[in-house]
């Protein structure tokens, strides 16, 4: 057996995986970028898809216009129906894992609906079990759609505060961009990016065009535009060390963001 293993392999077989010295050694080989030409685009649920055709149709047109220019992995948010399901579930004592299942269903509805709007271009909706086929679809058609919820279901960990699943569609989409080593992670919302407060509620909210995760932590905002676990994961990330939040209601923003222009708020790891 010894000859089959690297020295690190031998240490992994014999040692403790809680030993930080051993864990540090596992980080030394450079990480392989699986799909370095692809872009992950998260389409907001409440902020975007719930607005219906007025918001979604122009966005779909812009996705189609970018086919052949950029590879796009489109994740969907959940939105107002998830809020309803969470409200009903909370009242009835559902644990976080069950709320995660409910949120997954809503984000799946949105993924299916978007996929029919793109169906004539040969773009499929894939579930997590079909991710093995994702590279083929991307190479053949230039885009795929998935539901943004990470597939943790009953194994979704509790938040520190409250009961809502902490790792929702922003996080699930981010993790896809990190694990696949994609070239960008773009969040399509209905605001220009990050503000010092919710611009829908506070008229004095100031826009922040560029910020680091560390600066964001220092600001300690009561509300943020992207799920907080994304920032924790960015701090640990090997590949996807920046994300951009854009206003998808503005025509051309998606294309410019795909072309690498800052058109919203760019958040980077320190």
């Amino acid at each position: 057996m010894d000859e089959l293993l690297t020295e690190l392999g031998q240490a992994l077989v014999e040692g403790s995986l809680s030993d930080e010295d051993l864990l540090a050694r596992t980080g030394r080989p450079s990480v392989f970028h699986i799909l370095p030409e692809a872009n992950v685009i998260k389409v907001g649920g409440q902020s975007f898809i719930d607005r219906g055709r007025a918001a979604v149709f122009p966005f779909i047109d812009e996705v189609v216009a970018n086919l052949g220019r950029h590879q796009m992995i489109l994740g969907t948010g959940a939105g107002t129906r998830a809020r309803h399901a969470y409200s009903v579930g909370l009242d009835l004592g559902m644990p976080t894992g069950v709320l995660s299942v409910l949120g997954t269903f809503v984000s799946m509805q949105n993924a299916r609906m978007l996929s029919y709007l793109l169906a004539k271009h040969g773009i499929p909706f894939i579930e997590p079990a079909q991710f093995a086929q994702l590279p083929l679809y991307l190479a053949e058609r230039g885009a795929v759609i998935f539901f943004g919820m990470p597939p943790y279901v009953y194994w979704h960990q509790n938040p520190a505060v409250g009961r809502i699943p902490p790792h929702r569609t922003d996080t699930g989409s981010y993790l896809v961009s990190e694990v696949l080593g994609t070239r960008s992670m773009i969040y399509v919302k209905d605001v220009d990016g990050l503000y010092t407060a919710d611009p829908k509620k506070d008229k004095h909210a100031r826009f922040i065009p560029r910020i680091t995760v560390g600066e964001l932590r220092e600001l300690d905002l009561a509300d943020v535009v992207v799920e907080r676990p994304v920032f924790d994961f960015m701090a640990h990330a090997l590949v996807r060390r920046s994300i951009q939040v854009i206003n998808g209601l503005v025509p051309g923003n998606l294309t410019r963001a795909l072309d690498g222009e800052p058109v919203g708020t760019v958040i980077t790891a320190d």
Partner: protein
Amino acid sequence: MTDPADLTSPTAQADPASDSRPRHHVRSRLMRESLLDRQVERSTESPVHRMLPEAHVLKIGGRSILDAGREVVFPVVAALADCLQTWKLILGTGGGVRTRHVFSVGIDLGLPTGVLAQVAQADSLGNAHILGTLLAPYGVVAIPPEIFGHLLPLFLHSAPGVVFGSVPPYSLWEHPPGIGRIPPHRTDAGAFLLAECFGCRSLTLVKDVDGLHAADPKLEPGAAFIPEIGVAELKRRGLRTLPFEPVLLDLLENARLLDRFQIVNGHRPERIRAALAGEHVGTIVHRDR
């Protein structure tokens, strides 16, 4: 916040505050709220329904038990068979040496943490099938992961126990660890999260050590035994190694239903029954609040 009576009202309404492209809301307590607002997060704290309050979850170690040969495995199987006469058991299995090997090959090839988490599922599932084969005479088998979580209460109502490969379904969505490449949520975490979500009576980790020591007892035989400890104290001590996945401390800190887990030595199989009976026969790690 709307009246609780409105919680299930199916009324949809347009957001009056928005532009010509209104958002269509379903009326609910969380309608229009940002789920990222801390005050909204706090408002969602409420009691949790226990789905399987009588079931016990056990995680049977991979390297420590299932890879250790029949001298170790058969007495553990006999102890589990005995427990199945008394309690409903949910048995998770570790991946053991094969998982360590596939990690080492994957890391050498530069594959990221999510890929390592995905490929590791196979080893734990293989071990679940081994344990399920040994427990088949008692009506206990390994359940395919695709149906396991959803059908668990039905299976447990019909059989004395079930076996599952306890790698949680994080797969490509595994969290990037702070140090190195190894997936942080492995089979201990999968057993923990399941026990917490289903509101099970206890979680017992069956390993090859008596419990937690001030140092690894295999390297330092005289290391002091720690019979019981809280999460904060254990984090403060910053031990070099732990006989369980360190992420369990964070999960226990945020648990609502589980308030402890016990590590017991499966090489002393009589301790498994004792642990399920509520006896303190290994190390208990408890939540602080």
